[in-house]
């Protein structure tokens, strides 16, 4: 598939799958404020999905809209980062995953506001406001829980260790990334790493958490459709109605 379409699917699918995971917390969060915040984050991410996949469908020009892309592709066709599909675990894992994602998401969207593609720039300009708030919120929670009780610190550090092998995937460039970078549509993902590291380093320091060294063996493959075993279950649930009632309108 053309690089621009592939890249848009990566943007949309990461938002969709992370939004799905976050939405699983609705009604099950540890405090009412978190129920609200989780629903809000999920809502923002689903909104991003609509914009990215909507544009992907237009770019592809085969009559697939955002819903068709979200609901009628199987796991091998999904292009989200592995980080986004990992199970929620406890709130520590959920928040740390969000923080690691947000720090890169914000940096990426900021650059995208200057994309040569006016459509991309426009979507990024909308999304970056929300992403900025997400990053503020997840950073704040990482700090408060890292520098909270011994237990909350232990859990946050464990979450970080568990998620760390998945962060490199956010900064590895392949032919798709190179093509959209060359076209001026998006930055090369590796160019985001320094800014991301700076954010992560300073938040973790304030949170009294140890930043792990480089992951020896990075877990990658999501953006080319090689996922974890978790994605299939997410899609089975997410896509059930569209699959079971093809062509119905809702």
């Amino acid at each position: 598939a053309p690089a621009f379409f592939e890249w848009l699917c990566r943007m949309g699918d990461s938002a969709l799958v992370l939004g799905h995971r976050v939405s699983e917390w609705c009604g099950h969060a540890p405090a009412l404020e978190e129920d609200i915040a989780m629903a809000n984050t999920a809502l923002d991410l689903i909104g991003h999905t609509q914009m990215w996949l909507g544009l992907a469908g237009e770019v592809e020009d085969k009559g697939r809209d955002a819903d068709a892309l979200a609901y009628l592709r199987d796991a091998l066709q999904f292009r989200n980062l592995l980080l986004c599909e990992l199970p929620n675990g406890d709130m520590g894992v959920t928040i740390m995953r969000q923080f690691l994602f947000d720090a890169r998401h914000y940096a990426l969207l900021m650059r995208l506001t200057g994309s040569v593609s006016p459509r991309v720039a426009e979507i990024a300009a909308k999304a970056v406001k929300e992403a900025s708030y997400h990053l503020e919120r997840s950073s704040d929670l990482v700090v408060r829980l890292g520098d909270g009780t011994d237990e909350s610190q232990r859990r946050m550090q464990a979450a970080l260790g568990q998620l760390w092998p998945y962060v490199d995937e956010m900064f590895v460039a392949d032919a798709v990334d190179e093509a959209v970078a060359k076209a001026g549509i998006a930055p090369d993902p590796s160019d985001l790493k320094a800014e991301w590291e700076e954010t992560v380093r300073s938040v973790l320091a304030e949170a009294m958490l140890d930043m792990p060294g480089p992951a020896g063996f990075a877990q990658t493959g999501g953006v080319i459709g090689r996922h974890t075993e978790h994605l299939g279950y997410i899609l089975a649930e997410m896509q059930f109605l569209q699959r079971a009632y093809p062509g119905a309108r809702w």
Partner: protein
Amino acid sequence: MTPEEQAFQDRVDRGEKIEPKEWMPEGYRKTLIRQIGQHAHSEIVGQLPEGNWITRAPTLERKAILLAKVQDEAGHGLYLYSAAETLGVSRDELTEKLHSGAMKYSSIFNYPTLTWADMGAVGWLVDGAAIMNQVPLQRTSYGPYSRAMIRICKEESFHQRQGYAIMMKMAEGTPAQKEMAQDALNRFWYPSLMMFGPSDAESVHSAQSIAWKIKINTNDELRQKFVDQTVPQAEYLGLSIPDDNLRWNEEKGGYDFSEPNWSEFFEVIKGNGPCNRERMNARVKAWDDGAWFREGLYAHAEKAAHRRAAATTAAE
């Protein structure tokens, strides 16, 4: 009635709002705590049956609308706990009473949501019945409660329209969708009628609550109003109300309809509904699993306060 109580009743009768720091009868305070607390708990537990379909919503737009709705419910819970807190009871105390079973939540949330049409039926019927209960409460005598209700009613009527829009899509959809819509109506009709509570004839607290303007209408008045409003809406959808005795009564200017099965109502209240155990387990698990989280935030706030205090001292 003591002179104090009389003066209080006079204020209520004049339509004045009672505010948190003003004198009020103990019974008024207790009844309000129970009523507002129960309403707050209902919003919280009410996240669960709808939350059950967020990950399975059939389109991105429906998913976003449902997320926003569930988020609003949590928000309503927040307003209402805040209103209750003005009466001297903390959110944590109320939460504990919910979890121990000492306080209740609306029984309707002990029914399962089995198909996507239930997202329509819950919005249309359950929120519809809730609004019917809540609209008059915007004029309730207790200021914070009245203000919370005003805010909530605005959002609820939006939810109800969204629910009806889902029902409309289902009712005009494929035969399978229409079947789901009818089935959802069949399952939620009587539980919705139960939301107004048993006939006031059987309720001991009603008269006093009405005098205090904590309750504005009788249960039967509201139920009748709900039926009269809902029947034409069902007709418009092309769906049948599951009640063979339903018919227009020209004389009273409203529908005659069958009573819900009140023994089922009392069983569900007692904990024997289809989902009581699951709902409570889900909430208690969320709370217990989240203890470390709340404690972490609390500890951090303490540390930060100490640090600020130390910094201030050092600066002096």
